[in-house]
């Protein structure tokens, strides 16, 4: 990831640069030689580095509401001030936005397009109830084909089918490998923590479709498998196994990890990290664009609540959890809506303890640490 951001510093003028949302089918851009920047990933780095308060304030001064996603405010603030923890972000030649994760990205990328005066490619993915009907997939596919033409124009070259197939193959393999890493936590004790997973997910988000990404996960999977063989856990003593729903609380990740580990609690699975092992597996080198339309339309945040419940239920069973923490994320409404019902259903059906934890993925001003710690503490005491 360091190399990726380092390359970014020198990308401008050397290769075409695209800023993309996490849910954009990046497979289409890689064969054209784009260096891709993920503002969401960058915002998460700002969150861990505790820069959000400064950057978000810069966006708020420009008139952006504090109720807007803190990732959006962080990145807009970074674009307005030029401040970044990664040295320098290359200026985009193209903005690529896919609405499969939320509608906020649409307005966020429009603001970026206005600022940088570059073309914005928008992929609109209709919300899915059950499974998307063929006409909706065709609608997404048509947009992807149009997006390719725009990207080709900026890159100044044609998209070679053979190269697209290869990148798609790599992306699918990367998702599979990431899934294998996560699956190691089905063993007891889990060889790593869900919090480790939040950090190790960066390549599958930002470097998907590259050999570097896959090499990283092969190594990680082997190391985790080795830990499993030796019975080495992610925490010293795993007494209780938990499920985490929603994004991490980036600025509070260390206190959270300590609080849990001290009492023998481990997040052995998270719906967020596992999402990156799901969608990518559905891309198919034999039909890169058609399969991308399907895969990227059927991501977790673009599907109905029943589907979310199925995922949580499946994770809870496969990873044999005793409890779940649903992070009600002030910044991510699509992920947080419905959690009150999910909490009730999970607790009743699976007979596990479920906590709804109010926080924010990166704005510490929207989080009361003392109250959060208190609720988590009481939740954990309930297991005694």
């Amino acid at each position, binding site marked *: 990831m360091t190399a990726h951001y380092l390359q970014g510093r020198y990308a401008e003028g050397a290769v075409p640069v695209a800023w993309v949302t996490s849910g954009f089918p990046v497979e289409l851009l890689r064969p054209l030689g784009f260096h891709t920047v993920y503002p969401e990933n960058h915002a998460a780095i700002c969150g861990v580095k505790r820069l959000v308060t400064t950057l978000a304030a810069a966006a708020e001064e420009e008139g952006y509401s504090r109720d807007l996603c803190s990732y959006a405010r962080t990145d807009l603030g970074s674009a307005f001030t030029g401040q970044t923890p990664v040295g320098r972000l290359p200026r985009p030649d193209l903005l690529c936005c896919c609405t499969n994760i939320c509608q906020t990205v649409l307005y966020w990328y429009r603001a970026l397009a206005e600022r940088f005066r570059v073309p914005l490619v928008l992929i609109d993915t209709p919300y899915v109830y059950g499974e998307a009907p063929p006409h909706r997939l065709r609608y997404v596919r048509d947009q992807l084909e149009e997006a390719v033409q725009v990207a080709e124009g900026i890159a100044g070259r044609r998209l070679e089918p053979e190269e697209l197939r290869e990148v798609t193959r790599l992306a699918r393999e990367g998702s599979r490998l990431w899934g294998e890493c996560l699956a190691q936590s089905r063993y007891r004790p889990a060889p790593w923590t869900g919090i480790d997973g939040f950090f190790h997910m960066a390549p599958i988000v930002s470097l998907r479709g590259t050999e570097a990404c896959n090499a990283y996960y092969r190594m990680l999977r082997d190391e985790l498998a080795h830990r499993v063989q030796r019975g080495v856990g992610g925490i010293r003593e795993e007494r209780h196994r938990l499920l985490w729903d929603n994004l991490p609380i980036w600025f509070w990740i260390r206190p959270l990890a300590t609080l849990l580990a001290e009492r023998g609690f481990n997040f052995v699975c998270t719906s967020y990290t596992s999402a990156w092992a799901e969608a990518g597996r559905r891309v198919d080198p034999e039909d890169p664009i058609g399969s991308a339309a399907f895969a990227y339309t059927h991501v977790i945040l673009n599907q109905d609540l029943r589907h979310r419940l199925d995922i949580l239920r499946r994770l809870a069973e496969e990873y044999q959890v005793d409890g779940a923490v649903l992070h009600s994320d002030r910044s991510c409404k699509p992920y947080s809506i419905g959690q009150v019902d999910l909490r009730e259903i999970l*607790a*009743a059906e699976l007979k596990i*303890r479920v906590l709804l934890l109010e926080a924010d993925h990166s704005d510490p001003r929207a989080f*009361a640490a003392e*109250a959060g710690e*208190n609720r988590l503490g*009481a939740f954990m*005491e*309930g297991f005694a």
Partner: protein
Amino acid sequence: MTAAALGVDVGSTTCKAVAIDLAGRIQRSAVEPVDPRIESQVERLVAAVRGPAGTGLPLGATGYGRKRVPGGRAVTEITCHARGAFARIGRPGLLVDLGGQDTKAIRVGGTGQVLDFAMNDKCAAGTGRFLEIILGRLRIPLDEVAALAAGAARAVPVSSTCTVFAESEVISLVASGEPLDGIVRGLCRSLASRVAALARGPGAEGVEVFLSGGLALNAAMVAALGEEMGRPVQVVPDPQLVGALGAALSVLPRAG
């Protein structure tokens, strides 16, 4: 019987200390407005309730200041309130704790364990602070609230979304000539409706409702909450001491 364990509850508004005997009965207690110098206040209150038993008794600590209690074992107030209320009532049920800046709805199981809980998040509009701030503005002491509310001909509606907005709303109501007693009754209703919304979560249907916390000493609040919940609300004996009692029970040496 001499004291066997001590408990302190350092809340946002008051600091409570109890000494209990081996049977878990409260022997002595003390309540004071909370002092920012937590350590010295706790030391003084503990010395006052400890009595002749001297030093060396196990000490349980709860409330927001629990981690600053020297020599205390910290337990969250949710667990402590459940334990304390169960010790006094002896039955499972739904415990509503009306604290200074927290309102908790705790489902207490058949052994005093916490089955589930919900708390106010982000905002203190559904807590004791709501009443405290607005009564301060009206210059009405808390102990006059019950009589005032009971004598009111009707409750003047007051919103409960935000304490600060409600405060300015009350000022306008006074200015427009609404009777003070009606406003006070309206405030209790407003607070009770917010608390009831929190308490009416899953598993609350048909369950006995118990009330603890400083506001449970206020008969007007108890009546308003009963009306909002649609069933009688039973106040746990010594409602203000429930957390401290639970803290003491958490460190009480088991008999035998």
